[in-house]
């Protein structure tokens, strides 16, 4: 679709909360009006979000990326609740890149930080309510009655006299009206859709092969390409003899970029064969000798450096000095690749004054801006078509592949779909950062935590991605989840030392929380042991003032029958972590036999505040657990000669169905607004697993993955 908003963009973002009325909430509308008809079918736009066709079908614009989190169902639920429409008439369309669709929390059109539901919880209910009011007014005007006499009921406006009209017949007139400046939102007690498990709208096209991912884009006259970047990070292309590739049947062109070479053909296979036939000469640059041992040494050096203060309260050194016992430990975590099932890809079509991109992207807004800049176009001359994403996990926030596709298509003079081989995907990621931490805490004679003093050393994501989000030398994504810990004693200090190690790092599902949860929850378990206390009871005592956290911890423990001994040969570990506005506790049950470690079961309790689509929340916990468990058991990217040593799923191992534990999920609602859900399931699983291994073996895992700690996985 190609509509752009006609007006009103500058007036958005004004959020006024007015007086409560009739049990609902009067709230200022922050929606840009987006008027006019679509070219086909005579459908009308009511606000930027809702399009109604003459046949009564309602299309909801989706500003976010659908990467599996179910957002193409949850966001329409918000609209439909207020619009009073038959759910079976709801369809969706991915919104174009346009400031109208910026995420109100992040202030950009991106999908990340488990923010979609939190950001659009109010605006999309307003959109539904505004469209409903416009339909009521249109009906009232048509009938010559007062709007107050007209009710919206299941996709129709019904007058007190009994006459009624479907939305489809009213939409054209409604779209000509001014968007109301305030609308009343239903009280929670009147909800019919929100809070009830609703089948995903994207399931049917995902079981018959018709869902269109980036990889599936086909344009007339399009070439398909694949690319090899310099295998060493930061290296450049020196020279390449193109002839061997051009000799391959179906190869059409070899394109040289500053740091990569691409081969284009009439399909992926000729392009791939052509690329394999090339022997590019690389200028490997400064990182040619970089290896994992060196990176470890650089991180260890950080412990001798004064860091930036990420959190300080009370006087941690003094309180530690008074402690009966000091516990100290060093924890370390590796780089991780995202390995989305759909390898990186993008399709670009460029003309003199226009560029169209089809991509599985989490960053439509930034993509539009950056592509416009490199092509010398205005942002509105760049159209971004978002496809379904075959996994995102933060990887598809990056613009690297889109920009390659643009540069390659520009040189080729034809539309190009650029597809990365899996090996390129694993070896040219923006990795979950390596990190190391020195954790020190004191216990008094009764085993109570007196103070803690942590130092975290890691490369920074934000210095590259969003430098403005750095805070006094601290990258918040390196320390999130360690600062503001629910377990924290009054006297505490957390320092951060930034060490750039020459490997690109980026957002990976739950970002810093996948790291800090392992530190904090592993160390809490150590403190419980040092205090001679049972780990669950120890945590409960630390959470005495945190009722929501305690309730979540208790629920997970109850689900796992924590107070009863497990089956013979089975052992349990527990962990809790708050992230993205939600609190999750997980209990893992394992056994370790001759054939290796087996994870039998995971019990997960989640307080995500208000639950919008409960079955999606369950699915995201299941998925977050499998993602984190895969990393905890097997995940590690290592560097040698400036290159990533792993290449494909044979060397970067994945959990499969046979190893997947039973997973039970229980939802607690501890708040009246929704928390994030795409990421919070991941952080607790690694430490819960490590704590179970300690229970089983007495061996404390202070690094991951498990397989690098002398423990085989069955």
């Amino acid at each position, binding site marked *: 679709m190609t509509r752009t908003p006609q007006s009103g963009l500058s007036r958005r973002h004004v959020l006024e909360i007015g007086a409560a009325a009739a049990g609902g909430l009067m709230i200022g509308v922050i929606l840009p009006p987006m008027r006019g008809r679509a070219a086909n079918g005579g459908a009308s736009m009511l606000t930027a979000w809702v399009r109604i066709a003459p046949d009564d079908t309602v299309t909801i614009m989706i500003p976010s990326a659908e990467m*599996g*989190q179910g957002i193409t169902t949850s966001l329409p639920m918000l609209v439909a609740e207020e619009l009073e429409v038959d759910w079976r008439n709801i369809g969706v369309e991915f919104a174009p890149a346009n400031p109208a669709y910026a995420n109100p929390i992040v202030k950009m059109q991106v999908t990340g930080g488990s923010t979609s539901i939190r950001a659009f919880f109010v605006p999309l209910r307003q959109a539904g309510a505004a469209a409903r009011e416009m339909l009521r007014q249109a009906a009232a005007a048509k009938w010559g009655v007062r709007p107050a006499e007209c009710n919206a009921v299941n996709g129709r406006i019904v007058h007190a006299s009994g006459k009624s009209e479907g939305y489809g017949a009213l939409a054209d007139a409604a779209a000509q009206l001014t968007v109301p400046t305030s609308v009343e939102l239903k009280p929670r007690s009147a909800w019919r859709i929100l809070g009830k498990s609703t089948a995903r709208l994207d399931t049917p096209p995902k079981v*018959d*092969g018709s869902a269109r991912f980036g990889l599936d884009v086909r344009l007339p006259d399009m070439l398909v390409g694949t690319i090899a970047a310099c295998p060493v990070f930061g290296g450049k292309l020196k020279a390449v003899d193109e002839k061997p590739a051009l000799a391959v049947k179906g190869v059409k062109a070899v394109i040289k970029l500053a740091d990569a070479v691409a081969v284009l053909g009439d399909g*992926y296979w000729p392009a791939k064969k052509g690329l394999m036939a090339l022997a590019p000469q690389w200028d490997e640059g400064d990182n040619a000798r970089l290896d994992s041992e060196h990176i470890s040494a650089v991180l260890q050096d950080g412990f001798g450096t004064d860091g930036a203060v990420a959190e300080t309260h009370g006087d941690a050194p003094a309180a530690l000095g008074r402690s009966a016992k000091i516990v100290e430990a060093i924890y370390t975590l590796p780089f991780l690749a995202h390995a989305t*099932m759909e390898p990186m890809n993008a399709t670009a079509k460029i003309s003199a004054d226009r560029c169209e991109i089809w991509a599985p992207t989490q960053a439509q807004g930034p993509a539009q801006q950056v592509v416009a800049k490199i092509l010398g176009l205005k942002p509105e001359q760049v159209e971004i078509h978002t496809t379904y994403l*075959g996994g995102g996990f933060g990887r598809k926030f990056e613009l690297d592949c889109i920009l390659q596709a643009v540069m390659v298509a520009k040189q080729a003079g034809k539309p190009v779909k650029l597809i990365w081989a899996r090996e390129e995907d694993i070896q040219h990621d923006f990795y979950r950062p390596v990190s190391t931490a020195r954790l020190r805490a004191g216990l008094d004679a009764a085993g109570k935590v007196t103070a803690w003093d942590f130092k975290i050393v890691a490369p920074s994501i934000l210095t590259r991605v969003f430098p403005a989000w750095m805070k006094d030398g601290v990258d918040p994504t390196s320390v999130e989840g360690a600062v503001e810990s629910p377990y924290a004693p009054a006297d505490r200090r957390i320092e951060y030392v930034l060490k750039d190690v020459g490997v690109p790092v980026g957002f990976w599902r739950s970002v810093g929380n996948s790291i800090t949860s392992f530190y904090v929850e592993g160390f809490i378990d150590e403190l419980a042991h040092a205090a001679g206390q049972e780990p669950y009871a120890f945590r409960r005592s630390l959470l005495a003032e945190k009722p929501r956290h305690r309730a979540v911890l208790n629920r997970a423990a109850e689900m796992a029958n924590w107070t009863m001994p497990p089956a013979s040969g089975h052992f349990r570990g527990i962990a809790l972590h708050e992230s993205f506005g939600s609190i999750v506790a997980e209990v893992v049950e394992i056994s370790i036999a001759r054939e290796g470690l087996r994870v039998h079961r995971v019990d997960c309790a989640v307080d995500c505040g208000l639950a919008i689509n409960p079955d999606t929340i369950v*699915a995201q916990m299941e998925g977050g657990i499998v993602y984190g468990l895969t990393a905890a058991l097997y995940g590690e990217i290592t560097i040698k000669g400036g290159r990533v040593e792993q290449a494909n799923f044979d060397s970067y191992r994945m959990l499969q169905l*046979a190893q997947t534990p039973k997973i039970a999920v229980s939802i607690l609602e501890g708040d009246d607004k929704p928390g994030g859900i795409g990421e919070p399931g991941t952080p607790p699983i690694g430490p819960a697993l490590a704590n179970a291994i300690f229970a089983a073996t007495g061996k404390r895992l202070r690094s991951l993955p498990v397989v690098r700690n002398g423990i085989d996985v069955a």
Partner: protein
Amino acid sequence: MAYEIKVNGINHSIDVDGDTPLLWVLRDTLGMTGTKFGCGIAACGACTVHVDGVATRSCVTSIDSVGGSAVTTIEGLSSDRSNKVQQAWIAEDVPQCGYCQSGMIMAAAALLAKTPKPTDAEIDEAMTNICRCGTYNRVRTAIHRAAVL
């Protein structure tokens, strides 16, 4: 050279190199994009199709090895999602991102054709496809559901 292949009951004449994987013939030559590319080394199963009813990883199956075998893709499993595996998948809301699901469904359909009531152990052995969204437990539940449809 030209190869004659039969996909979802329809014969096609394909002019590609003999080493071209069936996956790319389906996707790039025939425009049937339901079958996915995940790894290129038969490790992930996103490219699973049926060759004479057997679940086959099409990314390492060269076109010159297919011969007159009947190839079935996700597009050919049913015309209206009425296959019992698809029905079970919908009932359990299995997919998340959905990218691996064509291959998962084809692997499950082949398993059920051979073993109509598979045990958990038989499911473990047959279902070696990779899903990064972690839909594995729903896949298992949906296979058990399909077995009784």
